């Protein structure tokens, strides 16, 4: 293309021709790749359901693991997961929300704040098994919590802490500055502004963060293995409620346990093909729960965004 000569319309059209083809090709390629990825997700889910369908049933949910594949169930794993999630949520939510409030409303722009923020970002990128090693050294041995529900819950709480902090900060930020100014103008202290005006309107985002965090925690296997989750637990941790005073006890926290992803891992690792159906069933349940929780989080985010039009 000479720098001085102007192109005729035909020259332009023919040159443009193949460029437009390439453009169209890319659209097709891009779209197909996206659909392929989504397709894989669908195939994965359906395959799990199909392979595990033989095992779905009331006894799958109510049996303990067993050496015989047909009799093995996820009761202890399901209960273990529920208890662990409870501890995780209880530990991670207050700390995460509090840290987020500090960073958004209180923190001055100094080196300490910078260090906290860098650490939050860094922790989000630490491999989950390293959290397991930390918990092993710290919770299991140093603090002496042992291989218990408590250790597992605290480990996963640390793991999802960055998720909760980031989600909470985002929703705190979405409260307009003008509202804070109005509250300060009336003589409110920082905590009063946060408590009366910022937090109440951030609950949607915080809830979203919690659900996303828990959906991540529910599928985490590596840290639990490291701190010694056993997979052949044919008993349930002691129940927190009992018929006699004081009605509530904490023994279950110290108990050994297993969890759903551990159970699935155990079944998948067995050479015996019969257990694969069990693994598939457990996987289908796990995946189903993860997708449901993520979907719930997305829905909540959507609903809360529409609620208040500032």
């Amino acid at each position: 293309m000479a720098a001085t000569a102007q192109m005729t319309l035909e020259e332009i059209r023919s040159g443009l021709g193949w460029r437009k083809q390439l453009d169209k090709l890319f659209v097709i390629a891009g779209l197909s790749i996206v659909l392929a990825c989504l397709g894989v997700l669908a195939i994965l889910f359906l395959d799990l359901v199909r392979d595990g369908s033989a095992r779905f049933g009331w006894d799958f949910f109510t049996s303990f693991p067993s050496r015989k594949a047909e009799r093995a169930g996820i009761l202890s794993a399901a209960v273990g997961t529920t208890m662990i999630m409870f501890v995780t949520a209880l530990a991670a939510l207050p700390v995460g929300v509090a840290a987020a409030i500090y960073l958004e409303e209180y923190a001055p722009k100094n080196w300490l704040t910078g260090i906290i923020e860098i650490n939050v970002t860094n922790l989000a990128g630490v491999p989950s098994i390293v959290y397991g090693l930390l918990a092993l050294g710290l919770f299991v041995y140093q603090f002496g919590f042992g291989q218990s529900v408590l250790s597992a819950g605290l480990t996963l709480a640390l793991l999802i802490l960055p998720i909760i902090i980031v989600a909470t900060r985002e929703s705190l930020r979405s409260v307009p500055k003008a509202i804070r100014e109005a509250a300060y103008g009336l003589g409110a202290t920082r905590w009063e502004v946060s408590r009366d005006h910022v937090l109440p309107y951030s609950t949607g985002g915080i809830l979203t963060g919690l659900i996303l965090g828990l959906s991540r925690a529910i599928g985490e296997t590596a840290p639990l293995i490291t701190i010694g989750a056993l997979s052949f637990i044919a008993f349930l941790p002691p129940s927190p409620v009992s018929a006699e005073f004081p009605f509530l006890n904490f023994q279950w926290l110290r108990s050994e346990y297993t969890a759903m992803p551990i159970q699935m891992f155990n079944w998948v690792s067995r050479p015996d093909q019969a257990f694969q159906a069990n693994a598939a069933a457990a996987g289908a349940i796990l995946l189903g729960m993860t997708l449901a929780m993520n979907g719930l989080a997305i829905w909540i985010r959507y609903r809360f965004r529409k609620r208040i039009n500032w």
Partner: protein
Amino acid sequence: MSMDVSTPTHAVSDKRQAAAMQGDSRIQPAGTPSVSIAIDERKTVAANTPKASSQGLNFWYGSNHALKGIDLAIPENQVTALIGPSGCGKSTFLRCFNRMHDLQPETRYQGAILLRPDDVNLVSREVDPIEVRMRIGMVFQKPNPFPKSVFENVAYGLRLRGVRNRLNLAERVEKALRDAAIWDEVKDRLEDSALALSGGQMQRLCIARALATQPELLLFDEPTSALDPIATAKIEELISELRQRVTILIVTHNMQQAARVSDFTAFMYLGELVEVDATSRIFTNPSRKATEDYITGRYG
């Protein structure tokens, strides 16, 4: 303020003629209000007791020296307006009165703003900004009611001060809403969301909210710039009335508004106080050229 209309108007038009003949356009301001203003020679800033006075106030945003040595007395129970081109520091100065700048990092005050009668220095490091804000109220540029009910909006300041008794709250909320000339419009809607009100109503609600806590000084930061003319007029009327109850300091970029509403006007430019005088005098006979240039529209 005596409204002796006849003589001053003639005096003004005589001056105008004289000026026109000399080719001096000094008293033909493009921006003067069309309403004639009587010049009351007795009205000066010095003649009134100040509610607050700024003495040698300097203010820095980081390394930016935003306010330079401002000495200004705010007369009690009068409306004082701050005018000046964008960036002159009028909002910055206003926000010193209730320490709003303390919410940003790297801000520094020097000098004093004394609040009578106890002569507290509002900008002193030893005085807690929260205490300052409990005595001084503010109405912001864009109406910012809380996303709560009308009642709760007005009650919030009272709750902060520990007023719990439901009856007491209801009485004081009603009084504030009446003082803000909005009671009739919302008395049946007290539990409805404040965000359902119109812009002008929201702003009057914000005024009620500020009044509920009985502030000693009420700051208005361009309160009508986001409102339509009818709402603006209502609020200007309200401000005029409110002066009997509370001292008012208002920032406005609209000179006509300053002329309509205020008793005294201070003109600021590039962080300095150029001139302050009775409104009537400053718009018809400013003593500084810079003021006159601004008023005549030479620059905005």
